[in-house]
């Protein structure tokens, strides 16, 4: 399990400021508003074609792009304890892909960028995430993490 050394180091680096936390909390309270019914997306709907020679985004993903959508899944640990994004998977995953490279994730994941940073909490249960859908290959500036599908300005809640 030497693979995990990098991750552990990264987590150890992540500090946490209580004052900033209070600021975020305030912001989340200000931003939070009653949720309207919105289109849902499932993990099965991401791609219209999955082949050895490449993938194609589904029409549904293209149609919902730029819109606020809702999806349920499991939260995988982020790179840092106070990361602004996490990976949403269909089922809980044990792999520790950040240890070697982000490339060890499967294709059917969604990267979730939260409205405001919040501390990662492993609830070991399904969550509901809402946010604005975005598709296309994109590399995170801070971590180098490459994602194909993202939710921006997202919030999550327990089911």
């Amino acid at each position, binding site marked *: 399990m030497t693979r995990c050394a990098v991750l552990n180091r990264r987590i150890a680096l992540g500090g946490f400021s209580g004052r900033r936390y209070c600021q975020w909390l305030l912001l989340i309270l200000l931003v939070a508003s009653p949720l309207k019914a919105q289109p849902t997306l499932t993990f099965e709907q991401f791609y219209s074609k999955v082949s050895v020679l490449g993938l194609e985004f589904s029409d549904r993903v293209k149609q919902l792009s730029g819109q606020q959508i809702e999806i349920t899944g499991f939260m995988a*640990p982020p790179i840092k304890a106070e990361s602004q994004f996490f990976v949403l998977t269909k089922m809980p*995953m044990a792999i520790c892909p950040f240890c070697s490279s982000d490339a060890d994730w499967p*294709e059917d994941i969604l990267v979730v960028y939260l409205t405001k940073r919040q501390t990662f909490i492993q609830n070991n249960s399904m969550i509901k995430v809402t946010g604005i859908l975005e598709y296309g290959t994109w590399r995170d500036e801070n971590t180098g993490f490459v994602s194909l599908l993202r939710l921006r300005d997202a919030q999550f809640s327990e089911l």
Partner: protein
Amino acid sequence: MKASWLVPVTFALVPVVIPATAFAVNIYPIDRATMLTGGKFDFKVEFDKQVDPAQVSIKINGKSYQQVWSQKSDFIKDEDGLNASSVVIKNVDIATPGDYKVEVSAGDENGTVSWSVYQTPKKRQAKNVILFIGDGLSVAHRTAARVMSKGITEGKANGRLAIDDLTNMAFIGTSSTDSIAADSANTMSAYMTGHKSGVNALGVYVSRAKDSLNHPKQETLGELIKRTTNMSVGVVSDAELEDATPAAVLSHTRRRADKAEIVSMFYDIKPDVLLGGGSAYFLPETTLGSKRKDNQNYIERFQKAGYLLVTNANELKKQGSSADKLLGLFHTGNMDDVLDRRFLKNDVTKKFPDQPDLTEMTQTALDVLSKNQDGFFLMVESALIDKASHPLDWERAVYNTIMLDQSVAIAKKFAETHPDTLIIVTGDHTHGISIIGTIDDDKPGNDMREKVGVYETAGYPNYQDKNGDGYPDRVDVSKRLAVFFNNFPDHYEIFRPKLDARFVPAIQNEKGEYIANAIYKDIPGAVLRSGNLPRKSDTGVHSVDDMIVQASGPGAERFHGYMDNTELFRVIVDALSLGHGKQE
């Protein structure tokens, strides 16, 4: 930093007497290395501090290294900012068999290693070598495969596996230069180079270089065959082709995660047959689903180099055998377990519904490679024995073992008409897996623990193979084998096969610790098992137990007693007589 690499290496090499000088200089190849005459390697000396190049003395059996090797040496005054000097001489070899003493000094720093260089027999014993690797293959996998595939009554097996009748057998030690434990990278690397290495490394010694691609290289069997013979080379795996075991046939990196670079090494050496998963690393980054970080399109490059490309089982079957050079990619990542592919009609294989079986890949590889009158080396890996054993999913691991055995049966059939073929079957490292009896749903009560039968209360499981395909018709029979792993993270034991997908015993919490995956918590009879591994361990780990190697055919008699994993390389190069340079 220095202490962490110096101490383990030193203890691994010199367990009894530690000369005071051993701490001053590291020499690669390491002490007690055994090497093939003409086998290529990178020579490296690492001094403990910066030294004056004029003071450096390197003597091989008393002769200055410049007299032994014509290659240019590279003096690195301050390696990677470590304030220490190194000498590197790349791509050298030793042509004359015998014992070699290498003495190095610079000022007050000095060190010595001994190498043994061997010559192979003049007469080539085997035309072809087929090496099967069951990744993680342990004794319990074999026993369970026999029980579930052939049945057992009144104490006697009702049939024999293909591997059961291979003529020769030995125990193999799998430990690493830096650890008593090992992974699939350095174990397969030992088979493929004849040199030991550290965990995570392929075809290199683990030196202090910071760049994972800049460690002292050990020539691989794939390279040696391509450089010195006209034989063909085939690599078949149901993992990603860039995964450790297939990669070890011809690549060099200190970090097995260098998968994009490994694909380019495959391209440089061009094995004649490449069949497996891992297409994402062949695609340019502009293609959605690519895992490369450059715009190299290796699918196109291989096609331009004369390879026929097939991407599913149907194409493999229809066109594969007609190819002279064959690239088969059947999944973007690792291929799926045979239990999901062929028996459970679950969602796992929906993405790639037409993946070939390892048996089909083995047969096609033999069809293509056997066209070469000069013979071939074929490596076939049943990779998912290990990938299912890590998450404690023994049923999937055993089905993958049956598939390995059926692939060996195909090779044995080939050897009937090609008796000059050496077949070797082994794993790379073991898992802590064991069979202890049965689990009988029909025992009274709901407490699953009380349904575990041991000693005379175990009786026999009720698996059936009515259609005679060699696999039990159902994996979820009412009376099953009771199989447990001896090391694990926190998890829920459910005493049943997982029919939807591979088991995920533990997931990471916010502290980076692995906790029991709650999706199994409410399954009737689930029992929480507190882990016995460090909390950072996501799944079960490899065991240090000996590996069993079995073999048949010319050269197989060399397998007996206890052997180090580096000796498997020697059996192959001896059988193929590879120590005599290019045979034109």
